[in-house]
């Protein structure tokens, strides 16, 4: 009974606290339903409650006049290493698919706040690319100010990071002196690591099937030994885990696609995929998506054929493409990378905007709740001072789950207070040191 009361109280307080916000007079870039001039977005609690031209402000609603401004859904970054405590690479094994990003997330990485100030509200947080199979990734919202337990999106799919090419073949990772280089050293070896992992997983599944069948028949059976890595690999084969694979060159992209046909797994998103334009029809035929940089190139041999037209060429071949960051810095202006696709290959405004909103949402299988401004979707969005495809645009206010997590005016006020506090603390420390000295 006491429990029930507590639940009721909690429900009431949650209801009482439900925020209602009306953004008015803005140009709404809905992404999925065109652009609404002089439009409004009504946010109730964590969700978008209404979108339209003339929405009345409900009693008690906070009203934001966004005249001359633009509303864009929160930008989704499908390649982030932000908010990871410590190293991003397990490194020690070619397949470290049993380690989890969820275990090392931190809620205090300032880059999260900086990205919110650039309109980015959600991310796929991945391992590095030192291992052919790196580990289990985590899809999160940038719920700045909330405990890390609230950051993972509850119905987001499980994901795992694969990596092909130069990085896993350890060309870029010199081992400490006296230690041998780690297998694999070639793209042949990378294929072999992935192949063997899935072959082993098939055997693992077969062993369990055998055991289950025996049990069912009422026979005596010894269960196979549980193997956490094989459990994960088996779940990929069962379709329960999405693969996001780092890749550069066309040949290694095809290698993975062919391997997926042969061994019966699916690739969800090719990450970086800088030579995707060379094999775009093959990528499209496999129903695989691509997340890429618009114009990074030449930083290593496998990026020498990277071209800024990659996004447009893959898009024209019906690949769902996103622009993502792999960088705390780039994640602050993915809208700008999206904009460059108009210049490099002639994507339309709508196509460009999708690259950082609904397309990444689809890649993460979260387009039922994110990536566009639609009634019923999560209230993740930002108010921009100009069209977000303009280099002169900046963010005024960012919402995640209906809550303001960044506000420029608030930031400007806070930074003065923080500056004062810092000075006071430094002075106190200084005074204490002097006092200590004089003793």
């Amino acid at each position, binding site marked *: 009974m006491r429990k029930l009361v507590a639940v009721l109280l909690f429900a009431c307080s949650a209801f009482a606290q439900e925020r209602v916000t009306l953004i008015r007079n803005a140009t709404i870039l809905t992404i999925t339903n065109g652009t609404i001039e002089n439009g409004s977005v009504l946010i109730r609690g964590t969700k978008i409650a209404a979108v339209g031209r003339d929405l009345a402000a409900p009693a008690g609603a906070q009203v934001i006049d966004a005249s001359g401004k633009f509303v864009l859904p929160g930008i989704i970054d499908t390649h982030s290493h932000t908010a990871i405590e410590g190293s991003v690479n397990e490194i020690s094994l070619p397949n470290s698919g049993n380690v989890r990003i969820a275990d090392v997330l931190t809620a205090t990485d*300032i*880059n999260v*706040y*900086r990205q919110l*100030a650039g309109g980015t509200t959600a991310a796929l947080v991945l391992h590095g690319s030192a291992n052919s199979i790196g580990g289990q990734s985590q899809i999160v919202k940038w719920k700045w100010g909330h405990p890390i337990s609230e950051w993972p999106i509850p119905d987001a799919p499980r994901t795992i990071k694969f990596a092909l090419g*130069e990085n896993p073949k350890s*060309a*870029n990772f010199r081992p400490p002196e006296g230690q041998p280089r780690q297998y694999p050293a070639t793209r042949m070896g990378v294929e072999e690591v992935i192949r063997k992992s899935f072959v082993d997983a098939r055997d693992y599944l077969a062993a369990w099937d055998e055991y289950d069948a025996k049990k069912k028949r009422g026979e005596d059976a010894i269960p196979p030994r549980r193997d956490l890595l094989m459990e994960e690999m088996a779940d990929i084969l069962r379709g329960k885990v999405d693969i996001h694979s780092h890749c550069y060159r066309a040949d290694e992209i095809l290698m993975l696609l062919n391997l997926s046909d042969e061994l019966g797994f699916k690739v969800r998103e090719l990450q970086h995929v800088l030579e995707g*334009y*060379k094999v775009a*029809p*093959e990528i499209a*035929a496999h129903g695989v998506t691509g997340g890429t940089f618009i*114009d*990074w*190139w*030449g*930083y*290593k*041999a496998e*990026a*020498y*054929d990277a*071209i*800024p*037209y990659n996004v447009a*060429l893959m898009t*024209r071949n019906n690949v769902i493409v996103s622009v993502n960051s792999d960088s*705390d*810095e780039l994640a602050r*202006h993915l809208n*700008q990378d999206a*904009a*460059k696709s*108009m*210049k490099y*290959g002639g994507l339309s405004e709508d196509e460009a905007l999708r690259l950082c909103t609904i397309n990444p949402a689809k890649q993460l299988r979260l387009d039922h709740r994110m990536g566009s401004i639609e009634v019923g979707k999560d209230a993740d969005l930002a108010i921009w*001072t*100009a069209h977000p*495809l*303009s*280099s*002169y*645009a*900046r963010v005024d206010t960012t919402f995640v789950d209906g809550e303001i997590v960044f506000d420029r005016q608030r*930031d400007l006020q806070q*930074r003065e207070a*923080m500056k004062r506090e*810092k000075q006071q603390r430094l002075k106190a420390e200084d005074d204490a040191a002097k006092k200590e000295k004089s003793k």
Partner: protein
Amino acid sequence: MRKVFFAALLLAGSAAFGQSVIPNDPGVKPLVAIRNATIVPVTSAPIPNGTIVFGNGVITAVGANVAVPANATVIDGTGLFVYPGMIDASSSVGLTEIDSVPGTVDTTELGDFNANASAAVAINPHSELIPVTRVNGVTNIVTVPEGGIISGQSALIQLAGWTPQEMVIKSPAAMNIRFPRLRSGDFGDVPQDEEAEKNRRKTYAAEIDKLRDVFRDAQAYARAASARASNKDVHRFDRDLILEALVPVVEGREPVVMHANLARDIRAALAFADEFNLKVILSGAQDVAEVIPDLKQRNIPVLLGPTLALPQREDDPYDLLFTNAKTLLDNGILFAIKTDEAHNTRNLPYHAAACAAFGLPKDEALKAITIYPARIFGVADRLGSLEVGKIANVIITDGDPLELRTNVKRVFINGEDISMQSRHTLLYDKFRNRPRTQ
């Protein structure tokens, strides 16, 4: 792969190769008139429906009512815009090809004191980065050696030419000093214990002492050289190439680009420069807002950027690097915006635009990548604006070049009609035409 690519190009029947493998018409400086365009000279108001004429590599007329010479090639600029080529005040284009392949990288010499290292001698005129950079309207860069404490001499170059000599506008453009730092600014850089802290301070002090020694030697060397130049009775002495390279620096004839970001490091660098009467250009300068009086008092210009970068400290304002330009403008300090990039030096206009999004007037953002760097490096008589007598580095666009969606339609460097092809457009054309076999 590269070989195959090259062969494909040859098969395509490209007759002449300019930079890289890109066909061009180098050395030919036609007489060109661009008419009916909005001309943005940068140093004066935009001219709607204007005309610009250039021939033999030099601008000969700009204005609303300009006669078009009968023998000029006429380009109709209706609906288009004409700007001077953009100038990146710090880049490593020409010195690097693939960052992770050491054999293709010539940015960083060994050792701490490389005053004699000169970027101009190591520029690869046929680098793939050059066409990629210039087709977005960046026609000039200062290419800068990296590493050590004295990194070497930068060179201000044109992004077109058969040889490094043809490309160089000014070399040395400046001596580059990465002033010693107590901290790199990263969170991880804080020494873990008192002992480590002590050691770091010792190394820091030793680095500055060593730099001071080098400069004192250079002063002495300069005096000796000048004494011997005017009096043959002065004892002959062996040449020292490092000190020799520093002579114009200690004599105040060649500027020093002081690379420093944190306020403490900037102040230390300026104090050092005072000691030797150096002509300073400050570079990086993330904390520039904290040292305004120091800069004003010495009349020091600043190379800001990259602006699309992260502030160094956790508690820095998120927009620190975007707002510095406005702060300098408000305080009357001359500044340029730079990328410190190589492969994406082409993104120079967007580094400037980021400042415009945070308060810098748009025309000032444009100046920060055209006339201001030209002034800072003493080449404003030749570059940085569309004015009669200047080198014809001219770009034609379909809009504001600082906007992401704007297309650069034509580029002229030295008045030469530059091919709009690059490694990127060639690969694009090759693969967009890939036959569908499926």
